Structures are given as C-alpha cells and as structure tokens.
C-alpha cells in the first residue's frame, strides 16, 4: 500500500457486528487529512473545467454545425444537427455533475442510517420522512428484499417501509436531471413533488389496511440480526465513491441518452405535429390508465424513457399522460415485483400495484386538468 493510500485509509474502519445502531446518530465529525486538501483542489479544478465546458457548449456546437459542417442556419437539418450536438453533451455534463453531488450526499445516508432515522416513527410522519429519505438513500431494486426484511424486523411499520420502497426508484437522480435538461425546472419540480406525494399516500393507505399477515411468514420468524454495518468514511472516500458512481451510472446510460436524443431528433423531423393528440392528448380520457398499464411490463431506466417521452410530448401527448407513463415504468416494474414476491404474498403485491397505480393515474388526470 502506498503512503497516500494508507493516509486515505485513516479514519476508515468498520465497526464489527455486535454494536447497536444508535438512533438519530449524528453525522461523523469531519476530520481533515492532508490528502483531503489534494482532493478539494482536484474537485475545484474539475468544477472549473465543468463550468467552462458547459458555458462553451452553445457557441461551440453552433460553430461546428454551421461553420465546420457547413449546414444552413435556417435549414431543418441544420437545426436538428445543432440541437443534437448541443443536447447530448449538455445532458451528459448535467448528469455527471449531479450524480457526483448526489453521490457525495449519499455517502452520508446509508440504508443503515435511514433505518435508524425511521426507527420509532409512527405512521404519518414516518411516511413523509421515509419518502424523503427514499430520494437520498442509495437503493437498487436488487436489494429490495434484504432492505424490506431489515426494515420490518426492526419494527418500522409496513406502510412506512412501503413509502420508502415507492419513493426510492421513482425519484432518482437520472430522471430528475433528464426532466430538467429537456423540459426545465417546472416539470422536474412537479415530478419530484408528485412522486413524493404518491409514495406518502400509497404507503399510508397500505399501512391503514393492516396487511402484516400478507408478508411471507418466514420474514417474521427470522431472528433479528444483531447490530448493523456501519462505516466511518474520510472525505477522500466519499469523493472517490461519488466519482465511482458517476462512472457506473454514466457508463450505463450514455448510450440510451444518445440513442434517445437521436430518435427524438428524427421524430422531430418526420412525424407530423399533433399526430398523437388524438390518442395521448387530454381529450382521450382513457389514455392515462392505458399509459400506466403499458408502463408496468416495460422495464427501463429513466434514461431510456425520457427522450422518448419528450418526443411524444412534442407530437401532442399531454404532460399528465406522459408523466404517468414515466412513473409507471420506473415505479411499478415487473422484475421488482418478482423480487418482492419472495417476501410478500400475492394479495399484498396486488394491493401495492393497485394503490400505486391508482395514485399515479390520479396524478396524471390532475396534471392534465390543471396544466
């Protein structure tokens, strides 16, 4: 191990099994090491490079499209190419920056800490807190089962656990960044607010229905595992983890982003305006439930859906219908249901899908009505 690596390891240790999780534990005091100074410098340089690249995007892409490639400014092809050249790096830059920042925030919110924060909370306030923690806690649907068992075993109410499980996949950073990049702040904000509301309300309803007996019996019979897994991280660890998540996520979605924006550009050129107004517009009352039903078997990450969604909207689909479709794709995925079937009996799965589905449909109608 090099000297720098061992410096980075200072302040990093695993607490062994057997120690109790302290409720409402305070975030570890920040210890600054010398290697932290280098890390801060590196981040400052990266931030400046990011900002310069972001502000240079528009002039550079216009110069590329019109002067280097030589397309006419007024031509449709010229505008599409400029749009594509501008949008792809813009979205990728926004994604990298946001994922990095959220990645740092998330090193403070492990599932273990979230569980400790939710411990002892009642229905109601617990649902609100759980939905909000769902935004910042790192979560992958492949971990849904251990998380579910760990939550309910430690005494967190079923409804509160569901509020978390609904919010975590629906409000994810990729979805919010893409909505912001393609539609602006208003729609990204609406999406976050409605995702939170759906998670809180659906979780509260599931809690009210007292469905504990529809959790698979083995869950209640498991002996509660003692203690918890807790890490103490130095800032260099947090930064390298955030950087790792940028590489992981951007590495996974960049192709979808490019393909989606390209498809959007083609649709932009060749599909007539308002072609979809008849089937996905506000007039078609059945379009919202149809969009939600269609979204359940479709399993994709937000990066794959949003560019398609933006093309649909451009051709006359209404915002409520489109947002309902998106939430259904990310929030009600068939693979996650199959995973959760290991711990939930079919009745509870059905109630889960039904409650969240109805909540999404109502949100879709509401947006179609007021916007």
């Amino acid at each position: 191990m090099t000297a720098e690596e061992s410096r980075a390891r200072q302040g990093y240790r695993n607490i062994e099994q057997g120690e109790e999780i302290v409720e409402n534990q305070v975030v570890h005091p920040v210890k600054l090491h010398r290697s932290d100074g280098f890390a801060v410098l590196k981040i400052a340089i990266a931030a400046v490079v990011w900002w310069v690249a972001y502000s240079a995007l528009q002039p550079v892409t216009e110069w590329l499209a019109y002067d280097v490639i030589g397309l006419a400014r007024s031509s449709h092809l010229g505008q599409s190419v400029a749009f594509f050249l501008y949008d792809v790096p813009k979205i990728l830059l926004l994604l990298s920056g946001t994922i990095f920042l959220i990645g740092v925030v998330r090193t403070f919110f492990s599932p273990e800490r979230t569980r400790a924060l939710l411990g002892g909370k009642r229905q109601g306030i617990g649902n609100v807190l759980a939905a909000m923690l769902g935004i910042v806690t790192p979560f992958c649907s492949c971990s849904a089962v251990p998380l579910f068992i760990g939550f309910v075993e430690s005494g967190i109410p079923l409804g509160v656990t569901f509020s978390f499980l609904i919010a975590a996949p629906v409000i994810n950073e990729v979805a919010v960044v893409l909505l912001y990049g393609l539609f602006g702040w208003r729609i990204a904000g609406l999406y976050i607010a409605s995702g939170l509301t759906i998670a809180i309300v659906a979780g509260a309803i599931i809690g009210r229905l007292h469905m504990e007996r529809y959790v698979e019996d083995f869950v209640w019979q498991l002996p509660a595992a003692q203690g918890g897994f807790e890490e103490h991280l130095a800032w260099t660890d947090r930064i390298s983890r955030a950087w790792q998540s940028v590489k992981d996520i951007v590495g996974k979605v960049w192709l979808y982003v490019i393909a989606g924006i390209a498809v959007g550009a083609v649709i932009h050129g060749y599909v007539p305006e308002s072609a979809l107004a008849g089937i996905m517009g506000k007039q078609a009352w059945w379009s919202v439930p149809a969009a939600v039903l269609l979204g359940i078997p479709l399993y994709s990450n937000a990066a794959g859906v949003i560019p398609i969604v933006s093309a649909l909207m451009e051709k006359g689909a209404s915002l409520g219908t489109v947002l309902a479709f998106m939430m259904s794709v990310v929030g009600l995925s068939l693979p996650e249901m199959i995973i959760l079937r290991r711990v939930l009996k079919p009745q509870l799965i059905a109630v889960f899908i039904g409650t969240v589905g109805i909540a999404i449909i109502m949100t879709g109608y509401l947006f179609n009505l007021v916007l």
Partner: protein
Amino acid sequence: MLNIKILGSGCANCKRLEAVVQKVVAQKGMEAEIEKVTDYAEIMKYPILSTPGLVIDGKLMQAGRIPSETDIARWLEQASAQQSA
C-alpha cells in the same frame, strides 16, 4: 484456509464482486473457499440491508457496494494474519 461468503441473490453486482474476490485471491496466492449465499434466510443472519455483502471468516466486511481490490486484499491479509496468530 479463509472462508469467504458472497451474500446476494444473483444480482449483477454480486457476480462482479465474486469475480473481483476470485481475482484478488488468485493474485495473492491464498487458499480460500468462496461460497455464494443466495438464500435470504441465510443472508439475513448477517446485519445487512443491501447486497452484495462480503463476509470474510464470519465477519461482514462490506454491504451494498463492490469494494476496491486494495481493500479486499487488505481484509484478506488481516484475516489470514489472524488465523495464523
């Protein structure tokens, strides 16, 4: 001989973790038995909330992410030092 357990029910990261662990074990020329634990009742005996989990000689070292190769190598060396002590 070290006993290594990979906790996780066949997620993509569990397979990646297993590959990384195998690589480090081979590099270090250590004798280790690598076990994949996919049964949730078994997995939940450890205080784990997210997979994959890495257990070395009965101790949970990491949960929810793939540790770096240097970390894994360090943990393996510590564990084998403890065994010979």
